[in-house]
């Protein structure tokens, strides 16, 4: 058993060709620009979405613990009383109550993954485990990787590799491709924006490179954080040093996630982030290409 928050079919930007991406709950990092905030917490919360609610009152009538009540046209959940049974989510006709994730066992997840095998086979795609952070639920990840390997399904893991080296080794033994973010080369800046230093991450990248694993590096390009010439130079040199054959994807920051924060009732980051200008993006590409790297915009 484990916790996931989505399974996305025809995921065409999470690794090569046509894939299914499984999004795990929970992450050790707190990246201030996180685009999947529902994946940060390991806990499954119930949320209420105002603009979907038709005020039919069914959830109020049927809540077994009396945790829901109506105040000024809003449904309020008493966290003390709520027993997280999910009944409100199950019965709401308007889908105004949502869970931020679900418990799922390997068989259930595999059933979904296997439905698209014919597309993976035709296109050379496969499955991608993402999140959140898939290494945050090691048992679920290792089990899924094992079953997928047995079934001959190509496996990619989209990870920040902020994890124990032993675990990274175990995962690597079952994985065909790693999609690894490098957010910043300066440990202090990294900690400022993600909550952790980059030491373990860079060490694990070296480990994967030593194991000769295929890595696709992904740089979330954010103005005011990491798009400056100095950091890009350092990032490029690091990659060229450990895995010069690797492909590098530049994921240009976009603001689409703010509605997700609203929906989840999560505060937005105190920092304001901007999409880098076209000429800066071009400069980043050129910098990295000068180091002999294969650079792509987008995933």
């Amino acid at each position, binding site marked *: 058993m484990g916790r996931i928050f989505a399974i996305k079919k025809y995921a065409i930007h999470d690794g090569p060709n046509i894939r299914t991406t499984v999004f795990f709950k929970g992450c050790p990092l707190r990246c201030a620009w996180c685009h999947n905030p529902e994946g940060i917490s390991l806990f499954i919360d119930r949320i209420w979405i105002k603009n979907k609610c038709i005020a039919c009152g069914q959830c109020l009538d049927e809540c077994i613990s009396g945790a829901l009540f109506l105040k000024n046209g809003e449904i309020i959940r008493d966290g003390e009383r709520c027993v997280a049974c999910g009944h409100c989510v199950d019965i709401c*006709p308007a889908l105004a109550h949502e869970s931020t994730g679900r418990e799922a066992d390997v068989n259930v997840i595999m059933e979904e993954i296997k439905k698209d095998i014919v597309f993976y086979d*035709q296109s050379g795609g496969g499955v991608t485990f993402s999140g959140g952070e898939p290494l945050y639920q090691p048992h679920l990840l290792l089990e899924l990787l094992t079953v997928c390997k047995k079934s001959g399904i190509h496996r990619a893991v989209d990870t920040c590799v902020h994890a124990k080296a032993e675990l990274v080794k175990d995962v690597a033994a079952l994985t065909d491709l790693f999609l690894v973010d490098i957010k910043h080369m300066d440990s202090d800046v990294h900690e400022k924006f993600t909550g952790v230093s980059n030491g373990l991450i860079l060490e694990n990248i070296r480990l994967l490179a030593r194991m000769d694993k295929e890595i696709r590096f992904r740089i979330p390009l954010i103005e005011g954080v990491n798009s400056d010439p100095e950091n890009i130079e350092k990032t490029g040199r690091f990659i060229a040093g450990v895995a010069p054959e690797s492909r590098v994807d530049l994921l240009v920051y976009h603001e689409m996630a703010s509605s997700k924060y609203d929906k989840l009732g999560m505060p937005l980051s105190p920092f304001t982030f901007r999409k880098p200008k076209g000429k800066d993006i071009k400069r980043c590409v050129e910098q990295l290409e000068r180091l002999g790297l294969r650079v792509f915009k987008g995933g």
Partner: protein
Amino acid sequence: MNTRIEYLREQSFNATPFISIERALLETRFYRENAGKYSLPVLRARFFKKLCEEKTLYIGDKELIVGERGPGPKAVPTFPELTCHSTADLETLRQRPMTRYRVNPADIKTYGESVIPYWKGRSIRDRIFNNVPQDWKNAYKAGLFTEFMEQRAPGHTALDGRIYGLGMADFKAKIQEQINVLDYINDPKAPDRFETLHAMEIACDAVIMFARRHADLAKKMANKASDTMRKQELLEIARVCKRVPEHAPQTFHEAIQMYWFVHLGTITELNGWDAMSPGHLDQHLAPFYEKELADGSIDRERAKELLACLWIKINNHTAPPKVGVTARESGTYNDFTQINLGGLKPDGTDGSSEVSFIALEVADELSLLQPQPSVHISVKTPDRLLDAATRVIRKGYGYPSVFNTDTVIMEQVGMGKTIEDAREGGTSGCIETGAFGKEAYILTGYLNVPKILEITLNNGVDPLTGKMVGIDTGDPGTFKSYDELYGAFQHQLAHIVDLKIAVNNYIERMYARYCPAPLLSVLIEGCIEKGRDYYDGGPKYNTNYIQCCGIGTVTDSLSAIKTHVFDHGSVTMDALLKALLNNFKGAEALRLKLWNRTPFFGNDDNRADTIMQQVYHSLLKTIDGRPNTKGTCYRLNMLSTTCHVYFGKMLGATPNGRKAHTPQSDGTSPSHGADRNGPTAVINSLAKMDQVRSGGTLLNQRFLPSVLSTDKDLKKMAGLIRTYFGLGGHHIQFNVMDTKTLRSAQQTPDAYRNLLVRVAGYSDYFVDLDKDHQEEIISRTAQAL
């Protein structure tokens, strides 16, 4: 695009469709003088010849391929022998807000005085409506089905390669051979055969005459031309028109002109559905192209220019105006000429060639309403053709549509055609499978399958009018199980299909007797050999189709009843029926529960997909193999064209949470917004339909442009298509358009006159669609990231 093509394209694009009454006047005069003097086939042929001798000719400036059905581009004749428009109809045509036709008021007066008095009560349409039984009329009025043959001639067809090897003189020789061996002593049908064959001979002479008149005109124009280049061109046109269609073409130019004269002839002779199509045009033209390229008499640019001229000619030919229910369900200028590219040759080898790529470039650069190019992908088809097609698809015109050659072949072999004929076949109209040049595959009308469920839920009564339109199958409130409900649905279905087939058969014989098509009969293999007309079982193969609509809506509705009424018991049948009658007024929570909490078709969810299979098998059981009037049978195909909007209007609220009068699901696509798991799930659901047992299915997918931004994305789309085809899918087509663009087009239509979108098995200008169809396209699930 060179300046010639640019000029011709602009002229075609900007011309307003207008009604020409020349054909109607000539025909009325001819019938007044000659009706009763000849057998009907000969009468029709003589009238056709008269038209070819007397109609106004048109050779436009800069044209290389010549010939128009009316006196100029976008002139549309009427066909009063089929449907005689009233003066009120003609007024409506010139005044209605959408798909308007220019009509000269003086012509309306003339029409009222000279044409209408003769044809009133004599037109096929009048005779049908004067003869059909009342229970058919009730069901027709309730929108349970449409009737294709009530105002246009039964579906025309696509051609094989014969006309590139045989001229009309050769066909005449073949006809003469058949006449010579008629056995008047032992064959009781010999006199009928003679009349039919003689009519075909006259039709051959008519098109030869038509071409010669063009040759004479071109020569005259050449004499007057001051520009030496144009003079040369006109002399070449004159030479070509003297050679074809009398003799088989010898050059690329002659081959295109050959097809064009034959196309024009068939759409002038009668107003058949889906106009006429060249079939595998790239395969037909490739030998000419390759030969001339080798001897240096043509280059790629010249071939492209000539092909573009044909494209523009087809675009000049707007669909003749429809009336009544047909105008409501098919309001478009498009007349559905489809050009098949790629596919397989009759010997089973890859059919794609350089001409296929040239044709795709022409379609892309011209971006016109007509014709509709389709690419045909077999396992043998090289990826480069599919790649070239996806690059055009990304532009958002809605074409080319993509077909699975291997399934299209298997569908036909399953019906008993030879493998060679099946390979030479393909698709025409929207998605309809046929053996090109050898088959009359007649579409008879759409079947409103969700409406049949609606009357089942009301014990045979149409809840919108309170009229009994079906049969008594029991009060649904007393049904104890889903199976009991489904049994009642099957009984209603059988009754409605019986009603439809009985009248279809009656109408079919009317065409066979009163409206033969001599020229078309020359072109379709079997008619000369049997001495029988195209409409009378002459072709080598004869198939009738009923087009079943709304599989998504009916599946989802049955799934909703099964889930909530019978499996969970959380909604009573009475409460559901009451909510449906009230269009969910005051029952929004119930509507959302049905809409959000029911397993729906299109999500790779077996709970819904098995119901789709159940309905599909019932449709097959009820339709497939039923005898028609030609000793062959009915089949089904799964296509709605634009009829799902009309059928939706005639349908109350449905148990899947769909509100009354809104569109149903289109083709074999899931209900709009019901597919919530992306395109692979849609494809997996569709693949559970045993599509080879149909004569075609139609899957619409709408993609946001962001999903196709890079060439890698196109490869993934190609992977999606190849996978669907590996799973047996018949057809898929894409709209690549974001909602914002479509909304802006609604606000400022003039700025978007060029915006083509995929409507059904064809593309149309978005701004020419009525509001309902525009909204329907916007509401299609957009596959995003």
